[in-house]
């Protein structure tokens, strides 16, 4: 049964190949069928694998397809690995992926590059699946880079606009910076532990390295570099908002549900290693916290519907990092899953809004659209509730677990918790700011358009609504994976959390929603009057620019880099050789003057020569 693990990426890959080679000749319906169908098949395969896995004793499964690389003592296989963590990931990827593909068959139907879209989407899913089922880091890296490439291609999907191309390159290069760090991490792990096979690696690491040893710290830091790049965390978060240049389903699938959470997956997968480096683990938490707050602030100020969601994604992944950092592994993965549901829902809802309103992105040009766009409204409502962790929606459970996990940390735990709660407050504000501005109040444009919808687009939305609402009741089968690290296990700690804390966690998001209501719906407070304060104005523009990271990086990296690339176009090394040429030509010019043609000078040269030689003879 588990041999069919290999089939998981095979179907999307076949879909990709078919569309790549024959896409130009196929009718659109066929393309849609192949594109979405391959993921559907993959989902069925996933189910067929997961069912026996869950009903069995949830033992890990390994399946080596073939030996990829074997040089000397280095060996890397095309090996697949299945455990609880993988199960969650493949279900999310194939499940949510299938829904988004289905949605796309409606959303993208008018695009001239329909088949290119599905080809790359399928390739993406294949890469993502390889990433999560790889049993060794090199294969994981293959998937890791593969999803990066697909992300690049899809962000720049509408390539005729150079802006999109820029965003795509920004995304790719920024994540590549992280990937490079990760690659160095792989080198380090291999040279120190002699293998890249994840399971043996973790065992070796625990055997050979003490807690807090230098190698562990270095290795985890390097892996963390990869993770923050892919998951758009500080300091490499700047690419994700720009990545919204791609079609909206892309944002839903890649930049919300799956790819950006790869970093979370990586850390969770390597968690025993991180446990060997408590300082780094704390750093993960702090990065998560800082990111979630910064992104939260920024999300409150954005106008572009997709950018708001992008910053919210960054913020939510910040929560996951926080969870990872505090050792609440399963909570993070849980949040990863619920986030995939509600954020996909939100993005797809946003897609419907955008498509219906003729590619309008600015939320302040919308307003009062709940009648006009009922399905989108429902999606947004449910998605935002889940996002804001409204009690008993999916987001509530997962966020709750993370925050409780944070509390369990000795020392800084309370502060981490407090940060998370503040973040939750902002989440409430910005998520419902979006809902209120777009769907309530008076209409500020686009009065006549009806909702673009169809079964293909609506069905995924409904399914996702259900999942976003009820996803919190799913039990993810990761206990075995994290069992040995679950010394701080949630079950035990939950009792120590006071009811007051619980109450705070329930109330704070509601407060956020309330504030948002007062500002954006009831009109009790007005943003414009607040903006009259110079401080608020400065803060607003600071937050709006994403805390100035783009400017900072432009100043620190891009400008010097551009300068560097311009400054030496003609290759300064060449001037050395040109110098030799100049020298020779000069020597030629000088020596040619001796060939004056004058016979007497020629005789004189002979005389000089003789005198020189003879004086040589006299003196030597």
């Amino acid at each position, binding site marked *: 049964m588990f041999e069919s693990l290999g089939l998981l990426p095979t179907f999307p890959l076949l879909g990709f190949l078919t569309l790549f080679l024959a896409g130009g000749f196929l009718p659109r319906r066929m393309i849609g069928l192949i594109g979405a169908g391959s993921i559907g098949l993959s989902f069925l395969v996933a189910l067929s694998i997961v069912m026996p896995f869950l009903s069995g004793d949830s033992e890990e499964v390994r399946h080596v397809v073939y030996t990829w690389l074997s040089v000397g003592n280095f060996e890397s296989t095309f090996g697949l690995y299945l455990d609880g963590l993988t199960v969650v990931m493949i279900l999310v990827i194939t499940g949510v992926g299938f829904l988004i593909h289905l949605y796309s068959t409606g959303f993208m139907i008018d695009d001239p590059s329909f088949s290119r879209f599905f080809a790359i989407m399928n390739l993406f899913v294949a890469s993502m699946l390889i990433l999560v089922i790889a049993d060794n880091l090199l294969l994981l890296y293959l998937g890791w880079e593969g999803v990066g490439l697909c992300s690049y291609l899809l962000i720049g999907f509408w390539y005729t606009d150079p802006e999109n191309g820029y965003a795509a390159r920004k995304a790719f290069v920024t994540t590549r910076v992280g990937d490079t760090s990760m690659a160095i991490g792989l080198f380090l792990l291999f040279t120190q532990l002699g293998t890249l096979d994840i399971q043996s690696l973790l065992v070796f690491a625990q055997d050979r390295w003490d807690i807090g040893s230098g190698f562990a710290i270095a290795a985890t830091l390097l892996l963390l570099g990869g993770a923050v790049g892919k998951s758009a965390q500080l300091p490499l978060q700047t690419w994700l908002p720009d990545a919204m240049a791609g079609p909206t389903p892309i944002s839903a699938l890649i930049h919300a549900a799956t790819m950006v959470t790869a970093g979370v997956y990586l850390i969770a997968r390597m968690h025993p290693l991180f446990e060997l480096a408590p300082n780094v683990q704390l750093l993960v938490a702090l990065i998560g916290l800082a990111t979630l707050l910064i992104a939260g602030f920024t999300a409150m100020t954005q106008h572009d519907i997709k950018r708001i969601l992008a910053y919210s994604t960054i913020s939510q992944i910040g929560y996951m990092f926080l969870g990872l950092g505090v050792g609440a592994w399963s909570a993070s993965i849980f949040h990863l899953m619920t986030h995939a549901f509600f954020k996909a829902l939100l993005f797809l809802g946003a897609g419907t809004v955008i498509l219906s309103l003729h590619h309008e992105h600015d939320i302040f040009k919308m307003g009062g659209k709940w009648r006009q766009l009922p399905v989108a409204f429902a999606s947004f409502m449910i998605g935002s509730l889940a996002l804001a962790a409204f009690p008993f929606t999916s987001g509530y459970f997962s966020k709750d677990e993370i925050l409780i996990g944070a509390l369990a940390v000795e020392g800084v735990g309370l502060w981490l918790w407090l940060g998370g709660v503040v973040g939750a407050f902002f989440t409430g504000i910005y998520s419902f700011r979006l809902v209120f501005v777009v769907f309530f109040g008076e209409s500020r444009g686009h009065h006549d358009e009806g909702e673009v919808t169809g079964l293909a687009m609506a069905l995924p939305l409904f399914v996702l609504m259900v999942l976003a609402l009820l996803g919190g009741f799913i039990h993810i089968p990761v206990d075995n994976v994290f069992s040995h690290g679950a010394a701080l296990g949630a079950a035990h700690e939950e009792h120590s959390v006071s009811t007051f804390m619980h109450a705070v966690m329930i109330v704070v998001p509601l407060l956020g929603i309330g504030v948002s209501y007062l500002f954006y719906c009831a009109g009790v407070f007005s943003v414009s009057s607040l903006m009259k304060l110079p401080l608020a104005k400065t803060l607003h523009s600071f937050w709006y620019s994403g805390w100035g990271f783009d400017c900072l990086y432009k100043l620190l990296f891009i400008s010097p880099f551009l300068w560097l690339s311009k400054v030496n176009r003609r290759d300064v090394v060449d001037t050395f050789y040109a110098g030799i040429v100049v020298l020779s030509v000069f020597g030629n010019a000088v020596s040619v003057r001796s*060939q*004056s*043609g*004058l*016979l*007497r000078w020629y005789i004189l040269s002979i*005389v000089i020569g*003789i005198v020189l030689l003879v004086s040589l003879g006299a003196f030597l």
Partner: protein
Amino acid sequence: MDTIPFEHGLLLASALFALGLVGVTTRRNIVFVLMSLEIMLNATGLVFVVGSSKWGHADGQIMFLMILTLAAAEVAVGLALIIQLYRRFKTVDIDVLSQLKG
């Protein structure tokens, strides 16, 4: 019998040789150049004569005869060329021969 020390002969020959060289270098009239050449060749002849008298055999003197012949031949060819030169350029200034250069 006192003989002239051969060093003296050599010094004289060297002086003549140098004189000839200077003449060849500085004169512009081709005829004088040829004459200076003669002086040089005769200086070398003198060296052989000196050497021959030092060693007391005839080799050097034979060489001297050869040099005389050589000088004569050089001059013969040289004069023939001078006639051509004069026909062409109406001058015997050696510096007209500077068309080829570079």
